[in-house]
Structure formats: structure tokens, C-alpha cells
């Protein structure tokens, strides 16, 4: 049975907009063309609200609050302001703080410049190795892939993302984390028949294609998928190219 999705009307920067009740504010605003900077939000995974860049001011029933838009469910009659003085002031400081963790990220530098921040006054945290603790990698690994190979460890300023016990045995080297990382600090390298997810120090041997002989994916990963989805054991004998040709 199809349930009626309730549509609600509200305002963003004075513009009347419409969306399904309960949808998150950020994707709605982005769809309408509002440029709200964000780093830890991605449509493939659940919103988290860590980077604090997507802050906006929301007025509801007469009360105005600064809130992150990625995890704010829209409601009828709210008034959203995406670039007030307060919002910009907060955004500038967040960018300065984030830049001190990822000073080389072109994407973040561009975001910073757009609000007038040229650099950071804070000492760079070298050990961060460009990780801004947005959590996208661990969320995609947990929620989408289901490998649970990495996680947030420790708390406060000691927080980082690592495999448990620094032992990446659950990592299937699928590269989802590499793809989703907003600062590009997780690298994937392929040398000969080995693939390495550099940040997690995970190296796996790749399976050669039965037809063309090219190594195309880690054997461990292929066996994991076969096991998870209950596929026939020879399902991944051919690489994607050869499999297409065969059809």
C-alpha cells in the first residue's frame, strides 16, 4: 500500500519551497540551488552532523536557532536563513579549525576562500594526515558495504578512524571509503596483482580473470561477496570486461 507522503511548505532565504515532511533540510536546499558548504554529508549514508559547516539559522514558532541542516527534518512554516552574519561567522571558524587538520585539501581551501578565510591561525595537526573526522568512510563501510572494517576510536581530540586493533582483516579493499572521503586522504594503489588501501595498510592479492588474465579485484573481497549474497562459487571467474563480452 502506498502511503501518502505529506508535503510541507516553508521558506529558505525568503524563497517559498516545498518538500516531503521529515526530509532533511540540506538536500532540499541543495536541490533548490542554495549553496551550503558541507563535508560530512553524503546522500548514500545517514547524516551525522560532525563537520558543522552546513549550519543555518532556522526560525520555528518564533524561536531562532543555529542548527546543522544535514540532520534537520523540515517542517511546515519554518524560515531558514543560509547566510546570516552569525552563520557566516560560525562557518569561518569551522573552516579554520578544519583546515588545521587538512591544510592541503583543495576542496576545503576553496570553501574557505568563498567566505573570506585564507588560511588557518592554528597549528597544523600533522598526525591527522588530512583526516577531518567526518566519518563518511566508517559510515559507508558499516551502512552500505557492511564490512565493518574501520571505526572511530578514542574520544575528544584523540579521536581517529582506524581498523580495530589496527588489524584490517575485515577490510575487503572495495574502495568505497577511498571514493567517499572528502579530503582524499585514503588512497588506493595497485601494483602488479596487489591492491592496497594505503591508510588502513591493507594489501590484498587480486584475482586474475580466467579469460584475459588481468587481476581485477581482491580474491578476499570476491569470496566475501559470494558468501554474503550466497552466490555460486565461480561467479567472479571473469573480470567485468570479459563478462560483458561473453554476453
Amino acid at each position, binding site marked *: 500500500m502506498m502511503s501518502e507522503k505529506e508535503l510541507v511548505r516553508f521558506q529558505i532565504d525568503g524563497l517559498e519551497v516545498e518538500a516531503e515532511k521529515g526530509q532533511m533540510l540540506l538536500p532540499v536546499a541543495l536541490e533548490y540551488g542554495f549553496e551550503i558548504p558541507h563535508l560530512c554529508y553524503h546522500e548514500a549514508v545517514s547524516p551525522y552532523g560532525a563537520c558543522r559547516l552546513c549550519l543555518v539559522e532556522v526560525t520555528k514558532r518564533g524561536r531562532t536557532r543555529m542548527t546543522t541542516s544535514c540532520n534537520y527534518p523540515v517542517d511546515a512554516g519554518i524560515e531558514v536563513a543560509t547566510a546570516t552574519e552569525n552563520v557566516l561567522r560560525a562557518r569561518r571558524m569551522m573552516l579554520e579549525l578544519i583546515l588545521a587538520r587538512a591544510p592541503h585539501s583543495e576542496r576545503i581551501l576553496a570553501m574557505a576562500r568563498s567566505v573570506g578565510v585564507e588560511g588557518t591561525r592554528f597549528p597544523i595537526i600533522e598526525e591527522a594526515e588530512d583526516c577531518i573526522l567526518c566519518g563518511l568512510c566508517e559510515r559507508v563501510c*558499516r551502512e552500505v558495504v557492511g564490512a565493518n572494517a574501520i*571505526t572511530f*576510536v578514542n574520544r575528544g581530540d584523540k579521536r581517529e578512524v582506524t581498523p*580495530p*586493533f589496527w588489524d584490517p582483516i*575485515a577490510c575487503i579493499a572495495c574502495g568505497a571509503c577511498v571514493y567517499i572521503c572528502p579530503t582524499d586522504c585514503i588512497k588506493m594503489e595497485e601494483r602488479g596483482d596487489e591492491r592496497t588501501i594505503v591508510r588502513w595498510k591493507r594489501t590484498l592479492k587480486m584475482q586474475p580473470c580466467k579469460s584475459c588474465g588481468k587481476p581485477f579485484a581482491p580474491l578476499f573481497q570476491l569470496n566475501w561477496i559470494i558468501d554474503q549474497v550466497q552466490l555460486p562459487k565461480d561467479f567472479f571467474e571473469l573480470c567485468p570486461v570479459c563478462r560483458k563480452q561473453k554476453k
Partner: protein
Amino acid sequence: MTSAQLEKILKRHDHQSSNVLAILQDIQASENYLPRKTLDEVAEKLNISLARIYKLATFYRALSLTPKGRHLVNVCMGTACHVRGARMVLERLERDLGVQEGGTTQDLNFSLDTVRCVGCCSLGPVVVIDGEIYGRLNQEKASKLLKDYS
């Protein structure tokens, strides 16, 4: 910890994954730390990821992944103790034991940690050793206390 011993703990907590923190605390109380092997078993038996358990173990200060000393020395660094000179007591014990805050002595005799407030604020500076609370201390007195435990 043997599988049988672990099973006892899991049973006590109804094999519920929501009770994982209490389960880890029981393991910590029994083994003085959380052995990797045991955690692998917990993950398997509760059907949760090792990653989740590791996240818990590194987040909560009551849990430790490395063995703690036979005697747990906790210097209270609550505000009231702080204004009465707790930092100096801590530094003295660091010198005496040859470890930094958070460390364990080589012979595994002592672990030195801080705790933020045990609720004995009128009697600061306070040091807790193996659950015994000692108040009204200074550097000398705290140092002497350790000798009783050596």
C-alpha cells in the same frame, strides 16, 4: 578468560547486545583488561562487529585494552582537589613510580591514572587506591601511601 567463563558473563546479561558495555566491564573486572581473543569471541557470540566493540573499548575510560597494574592508583583531579594542589600530588606520584599519568609500571605493580571527582571534595586532595579512598593528602603522605602497597 576461558570460553566457559565468558559464557557465564554473557548469560548474566541475557546475551543481549545492548548490554555489551556491562559485559565488557565484567571482563575488565575479571582479567584486568580486555584481551583481544575474548573480544573476538564476544563479537561472534553477540553477533556484533569487532569494530563496534573496539570503539566502545577505546571510548570509555573504565575499559582498557592493555593490562592494568595489580594496584590501581587514581589521583582525583576534580575542581576542589585541583585548587587544593592535586596536580602536585600527581606529579610526585609520577616521579615515584616512574610512569606518566595513564601508564603502568614495568613490573605491572601499579597503574597511575586520574579520575575527575569521586565526590569527596571536602577532603581533597584525594587518591583512590584499589577502591580505598584516602583524603587530606599532600605529596609526602601520598608518597608514603604507595609504600604500603608495594
